[in-house]
C-alpha cells in the first residue's frame, strides 16, 4: 500500500472511531450501528491477515476497556473478524454495493456471535434473542451506515488515479 493510501485509510479509520464514540451514544439506539467493526473491516481489506488480526486485537482491547467485565471478549471477536475480513477481501470487496453491504452485515453479526459467546453473560433465551433479533438488526444498521459512509468517503477510500 502506498503512503497516500495508508494516509487515507488511517484518516477513514480515525473518523470511524470518532463516530463510534460520538454519534453512536448520541443516537442511543437499542440496535446500534458499530463503527469500530466498520473501521476494522475497511482497514483489514488493505492489510495482510496477520496485521489485520493485530489491529483487531488492538481495537477489541480498546472497546473492551470501557466494559471491564467483558475485557477480552471484544478482542477475540475483533481479531477473528479482522483476520477473516482480510483473508476474504478478494471475495467480497468487489465494486458492488450489495456485496459490500452483505460484507458489513456479516462482519458485524459474526462479531456479535463471537462476542456474546465468549463473554458468557447472556444465556438461554436471552442469548438466542440477542443473536437472532438484536444482532441482525444492529448488523443491518451497521451495513446501512457502512454503505452511506462508502458513498460519502469514496474520495478517501479510492486510490488516486493518474
Amino acid at each position, binding site marked *: 500500500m502506498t503512503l497516500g493510501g495508508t494516509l487515507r485509510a488511517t484518516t477513514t479509520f480515525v473518523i470511524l472511531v470518532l463516530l463510534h464514540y460520538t454519534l453512536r*451514544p448520541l443516537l*442511543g439506539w437499542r440496535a446500534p450501528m458499530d463503527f469500530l467493526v466498520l473501521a476494522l473491516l475497511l482497514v483489514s481489506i488493505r492489510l495482510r491477515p496477520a496485521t489485520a*488480526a493485530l489491529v483487531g*486485537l488492538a481495537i477489541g482491547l480498546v472497546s473492551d*476497556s470501557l466494559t471491564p467485565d467483558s*475485557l477480552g471478549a471484544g478482542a477475540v471477536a475483533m*481479531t477473528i473478524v479482522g483476520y477473516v475480513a482480510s*483473508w476474504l477481501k478478494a471475495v467480497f470487496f468487489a465494486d458492488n454495493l450489495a456485496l459490500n453491504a452483505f460484507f458489513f452485515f456479516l462482519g458485524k453479526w459474526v462479531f456479535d456471535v463471537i462476542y456474546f459467546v465468549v463473554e458468557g453473560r447472556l444465556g438461554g433465551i436471552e442469548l438466542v434473542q440477542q443473536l437472532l433479533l438484536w444482532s441482525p438488526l444492529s448488523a443491518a444498521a451497521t451495513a446501512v451506515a457502512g454503505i452511506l459512509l462508502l458513498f460519502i468517503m469514496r474520495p478517501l477510500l479510492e486510490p488516486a488515479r493518474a
Partner: protein
Amino acid sequence: MARAVRSTSSRFDLIALGTCALLALIARGLPPNLRDPVATSMRRTFLAPLVMLQERAEASRRSLLLDQQRTAITDSVALRAMTVSSLEDENAKLRRLIGLGGRLKWGFIPAEAIHGRGVRDVTTMTLTAGSAAGVRRLSPVVAPEGVVGMVTDVDPTMSQAMIWTHPDFRVSAMSEDGAAFGIVQAHLASATTGYLMELRGIPFRTALKPGTLILSSGLGGVWPRGIPIGRVLEEVKTSEGWARTYLLRPAVSPADVGAVMILRADRISQGFDNVWTNVAAVDSAARAIAAAGDSLAKTAALAEAAARRAAIEAVSRDTSHATSGIPGGLPPELLPDTSLQEAAPLSDSAIEARRRAAARKARRDSLARDSAERDTLVMSPTRGIIR
C-alpha cells in the same frame, strides 16, 4: 517457489492469528483484580479523549431527552390550564345548583339542558328528564340564578322547554319591594346587545331605579312568587303614555344554562319566598361581615400604632432624663428623634394610652408602698409595731 512463499506467509498469518487470539483469551481470563487496573489504565491514558467524547455525547442525548420531556410536561400543563377556567365555572354552577337543591329541599327534578342549535338564537332546549321523572307540561324551569323557562312538551324520558328568550314567553313580575307589577318578556329588538328582557306595564307613577331586582310575582298560576328574573337596566321610551317599560338584564343567560331544576306542581303551591331571596341576603351579609372585619382590623391597627408611639415617647423621655445626668449629655446622633412626635399633635387614642399608662404606674407605686409597709411590719417583730 511462489507456493512456498505463500505457504510460509499463510503460516505466519495463522501464527499471528493464534497469538492474537491467545492474548485476547488471556485478557478475557484475567481475574477481576487484574482486569480492572488494566482497563482503568487504558481509560485514563490514551483512551481518555474518546471516553470524554462518549461522555459528552451521552450527556447531550440525556439533555435532549430531558428537554423533550420538559416540553411535553409544559404542553400538558398548558393544556390543563386551558381547561381549568371552564372547570372552575362548571364547579361554581354545580355548587350553586346543589345549594339551590338544599334550599328547595323537595319538589324539584334535576335535569341537564341540551342546546339544540347555535348560541345566538336559543329559544328552546331539551331537558334530560321526562314524565317518568314527574315532569309535567308548563312546569317552571329554574336555575340557581333564577327563571330559565317553562316545559312545553313532555316525553317519558325527555322534555322540551321554552326559554325566556322565546317570543311567546311571559311571566308576571314585580319589583323586590312589591311596589310595581308588570309582565316580563324577551326584548326582541336586541340583536346587537345580546339577550335582554322587557318589563312592561309598570304604572306611569312608579319609577324603578337601575339595578332594582325584579322577581316573579306569583300571579297567573304558572310561576311561583319570588324567583329572580333580572335587574333593571334603564327605561325604554315607548309611545304608550299610561305605562312604563324597562329594559332588564336577565338573571340567567341562555348560553350558560347547563344544569337546571324543574319545579313540581305540589312544590309550587308551598311557595319559594325564602329560597332565592336568601341567596342575595347571604351575599350581602358576607360582604357586610367582610367590610366590618376590615374596619375592625383597621381600628385595631390604629390603636396599636398609637400605643406603640406613646411607649416610644415615654422611653425617649426617660432617656432624656437619664442623659441629663451625664456631663455634657449624649451626642445628638445617639438621641432618639422625637422632633416629629413632639411637633405632631397627639391623637385621642394616644392621649388615652398615656393616661392608662400613668394610671397603671400610679397603681404600681401605691401597691409597692403598701408592700413596703407590710414588709416593715413583718421584719420588725421584736421592736413592736412601728408605723
